[in-house]
């Protein structure tokens, strides 16, 4: 990661690159190729019907080494910067890939790395990269919105190790994970613990989210874990959660960008075909201008992706706030674009059968999972240092 610090000490983000490098362009092309060839509507439909996951596809990702692109080299991955992961996610968003690269690998992976005990969990990371293991970050609790500090899940340390009790609610991807990364309150502090899915005392109520992801409510009853289940101790837990949430927020933006792009394309196609009052919908001036506004939103949102990457790779004190700000701008746009896309499709747009409705649901889920535009704007407002997210001056 290239983190440059200018002489005024300001940026705290990596170099701001406006395009992709040669390697990145090749990587992007190969992702596009694979998805176009192997990830069609039919395969997705089958996966949807089978709990939202296609193990063969996941294995394919691992074999291509793409899961490793999300981890830095010293840990066995080959990720150079945030760019590879964002490229992957953008293309996944465009192709509406169900499989939880972000939720099962990147987000918990970021927490592991920032938790400071990654060395102790080398086998787990190897397993993630090999596609043999999957994690889910269990942080959200009943009656609490976006509250990152655990309260309803506790961990007590005694001679046996850790004993976990409590509940988590609406945990995305939990049914797919062999191990849950659980935030718990430990006395005055918080910790992150690795809880095997099948540990005695763990129970799940499983269900599906609006975009076809498996999810669950979790209950922990006297779940006993060894000492080395610790992924982030009290002194690193907040940092680990921030890293995870930053990746969730940012990665979801990349997916939303891909989804917006596809949504615009679908809408252009539909309005260019559908006839009303004796002409194509796209012949109406009002429709044309709406499509132009959607294209503008997309252009402006895509332009922020390099900035997001630079902040993800950076070490600025207000990194979380900067990511939140960019997220606010992108998810706000994405929400408008997919809503307009549905509107321009008319009745067909709200049916399950129409591809556009899947984009709408996906973008909605990407916003809900990691904080709305307004919530992120407020996070930016309160946490930013300086008034220029680009930090060029």
């Amino acid at each position, binding site marked *: 990661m290239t983190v440059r610090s200018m002489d005024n000490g300001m940026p705290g983000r990596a170099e701001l690159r406006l395009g992709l490098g040669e390697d990145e362009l090749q990587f992007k092309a190969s992702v596009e190729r694979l998805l176009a060839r192997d990830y069609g509507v039919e395969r997705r439909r089958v996966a949807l019907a089978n709990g939202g996951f296609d193990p063969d596809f996941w294995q394919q990702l691992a074999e291509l080494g793409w899961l490793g692109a999300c981890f830095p080299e010293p840990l066995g991955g080959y990720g150079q910067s945030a760019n590879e992961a964002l490229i992957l996610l953008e293309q996944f968003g465009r192709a509406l890939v169900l499989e939880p690269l972000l939720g099962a690998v990147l987000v918990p992976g970021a927490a592991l790395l920032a938790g400071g005990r990654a060395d102790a969990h080398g086998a787990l990371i190897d397993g993630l990269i090999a596609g043999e293991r999957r994690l889910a970050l269990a942080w*959200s609790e009943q009656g609490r919105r976006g509250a990152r500090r655990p309260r309803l899940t506790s961990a007590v340390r005694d001679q046996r190790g850790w004993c976990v009790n409590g509940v988590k609610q609406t945990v995305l991807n939990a049914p797919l994970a062999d191990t849950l990364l659980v935030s718990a309150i430990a006395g005055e502090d918080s910790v992150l613990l690795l809880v095997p899915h099948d540990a005695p005392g763990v129970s799940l109520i499983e269900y599906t989210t609006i975009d076809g992801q498996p999810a669950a409510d979790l209950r922990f009853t006297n779940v006993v874990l060894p000492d080395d289940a610790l992924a982030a101790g009290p002194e690193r837990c907040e940092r680990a959660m921030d890293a995870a949430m930053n990746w969730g927020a940012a990665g979801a933006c990349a997916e939303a960008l891909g989804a917006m792009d596809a949504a615009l394309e679908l809408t252009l196609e539909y309005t260019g075909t559908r006839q009303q009052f004796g002409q194509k919908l796209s012949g109406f001036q009002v429709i044309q201008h709406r499509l132009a506004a959607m294209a503008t939103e997309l252009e402006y949102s895509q332009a922020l992706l390099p900035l997001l990457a630079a902040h993800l790779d950076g070490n600025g004190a207000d990194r979380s706030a900067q990511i939140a700000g960019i997220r606010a701008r992108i998810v706000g746009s994405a929400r408008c674009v997919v809503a307009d896309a549905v509107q321009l499709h008319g009745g067909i747009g709200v049916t399950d059968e129409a591809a556009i409705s899947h984009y709408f649901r996906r973008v909605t889920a990407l916003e*809900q999972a990691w904080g709305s535009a307004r919530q992120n704007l407020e996070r930016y407002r309160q946490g930013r240092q300086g008034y220029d997210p680009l930090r060029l001056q």
Partner: protein
Amino acid sequence: MDAIDTPRIQAFRREVRDFVAGQLPEAIKQRTRQGFHVSKEDMRDWTAILHRQGWSAPHWPTAYGGTDWSPLQRMVFDIELALGWAPAPSPFGLHLIGPVIYTFGTEQQKQRYLPGILDGSQFWCQGYSEPNAGSDLASLRTSARRHGDRYIVNGQKIWTSQAQYADMIFCLVRTDGSGSKQSGISMLLIDMNTPGVTVRPIITQDMSHYVNEVFFEDVEVPADNLIGEENAGWRYAKFLLENERTASAYLPQAKQDMNRLREMIGALEGEHGPLSEDPVLDSQCAELELELAAHEMTIYRILTDNARSPSAAAASMIKIRGARLQQRLSSLWNEVLGVHALPLFTPGADSSYGEPGAAGAMSQFLIRRAVSIYGGTNEIQHSIIAKRGLHL
């Protein structure tokens, strides 16, 4: 100089409120409150209860079993029902075809159909849109050819809500293809059990089944089931649309939504304490409260003929803004729920997972993308305002 808070109206409001509190079965109330889609049985049962009070069709003339309430009073009634978490009755009989039947129907049609609508026992649906006649409704192609005392109907309707429940469908059909698009249309009442009628579900993005395609293949319909005159169907269709010009404003719904929002906010906490103390969320609520107030005042002005715009234009305005309010309010539920908004509502589930009420709320959020589309898209409504309000 109409006032909306006269003692008479306030007393009426309390009367309705007490009635709902006393008569609405608790189980139905809880289902409505959780945002579940209203079942056929709940609609039927609640309509029957209202009917016993003489209140199932307040907007009908007393001669047909309605009331003499003013439009303002009827709106107050609808609002109180919604605020008491009563389910909305099926509109197709009570609000759409009922008034057409008692205004243009034959004596026989009135006797045959009105009672079942009034007491909630008979369900109707509306056969208007077709695959290539959506916004451009008048290009519809479903044909009805006269053969002696019957029509033979062939064609397809789409977006037919509640067709899976319905005993009857009122249909716009083409009886003459020679003149202008509007001039050859007739309105037929068709029994859904007639051979040749097929209903195919359309699943909407909330994974629920409200709407359908309805296919007609050589369906024989008695000529007695024609409304009014042949080829005059466009006129009845317009009457039907304009008859309830404020129904499309979703005011009772929006007020119910606002209560739902307040309940949700009261039940959750955010990162820095109770959500009710979150200034950013509160600011979004404040904005919507004022928007709702403007919407409500506009509707009352329309109902009392105090509005500025001609009524056709005003109806389009409140349709657009009512739809926007419904969409914005349900977005705010999402804002409140965060990740907890995401579980998919499974019809028939007892909601044992996720945040209470969340799945129903999300289901509403998803289906409400349609409110700016059906009954004339926002784009069509803007054109109506331009034409009929501004004479462009």
